[in-house]
């Protein structure tokens, strides 16, 4: 294998090459250009297509994700439905709560006194320093 193009192709293909031969080949402008072409061609041919195995895996996983989504949707639906049903089944409690709010309006009245001061005639009620 003496052709410089063969050497750079082998190098590009990960085949074993002698270091000295590769060094000599890479010193050759024509061989370098050929190496560039090999890499460009590889880039053009490069296959980014999804693998069948990946498709199989994706297909196998799809039902699991579907189940998870369905389960989540069921939980949300059950929560909404249950909340609605509970709300519908407790109208009296709701009204009672409203009534209680109206009744609680009495609490705005002054609280009952805890200590009564009786005013007596002839007593000076003005406070003075010294306690007299």
């Amino acid at each position, binding site marked *: *294998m003496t052709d410089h*193009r*063969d050497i750079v*192709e*082998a190098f590009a*293909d*990960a*085949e074993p090459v002698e270091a000295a031969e590769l060094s000599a080949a890479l010193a050759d402008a024509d061989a370098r250009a050929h190496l*560039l*072409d*090999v*890499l*460009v*061609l*590889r*880039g*053009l*041919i*490069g*296959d*980014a*297509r999804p*693998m*069948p*195995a990946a*498709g199989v895996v994706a297909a196998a996983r799809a039902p699991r994700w579907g189940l998870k989504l369905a389960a989540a949707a069921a939980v949300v639906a059950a929560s909404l439905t249950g909340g609605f049903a509970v709300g519908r089944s407790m109208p009296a409690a709701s009204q009672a709560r409203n009534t209680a709010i109206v009744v609680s309006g009495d609490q705005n009245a002054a609280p009952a006194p805890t200590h009564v001061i009786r005013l007596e005639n002839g007593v000076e009620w003005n406070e003075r320093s010294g306690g007299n």
Partner: protein
Amino acid sequence: MADAERLFTLHRQGVFRYLCRVVGRPETAQDLTQEVFLRVSRAGVPDTDDVGHRAWVFRIARNLVLNHVRDDARRGQAVALLDQAAPATQEVALAIRRAVDALADVDRDVFLMRESAGLSYSEIAAACDLSVEAVRARLRRAREQLRESLDGPMRTGRQGLIAIRGIEAGES
């Protein structure tokens, strides 16, 4: 059976890529890939090393796809289809498809086993009943033919590589 499963795990992607490039249709390539490994499991894995196993699997794949592409109707259908891999554009993909199809059968198999499946020269030689030197020669011939057929995309690709090198040189 365990050996056949191991070979399936190791080589299914390479076999699919190779078959996909040859037939041009992913669906057909999937079917052929399944058929390859069905034959692998039925035939019984030969007692050899990893290189020998890989070459054996690709020999089966090659024989299978050769029978497939000899069907003129299917062959015409495959050529008419656009390649969905779309390396750059549909036009480029179609040009690549046509250029690869224009290669001699053995040259095309050697080239695709190397570029799409990543086989070594010795593995390709074993799969195609060639010597390593013959593989090297056919690979080089295929590349030169493709380079001429794909002159426009190759020029664009070269400019891209040079531009990237220019950017890297400017950064350093």
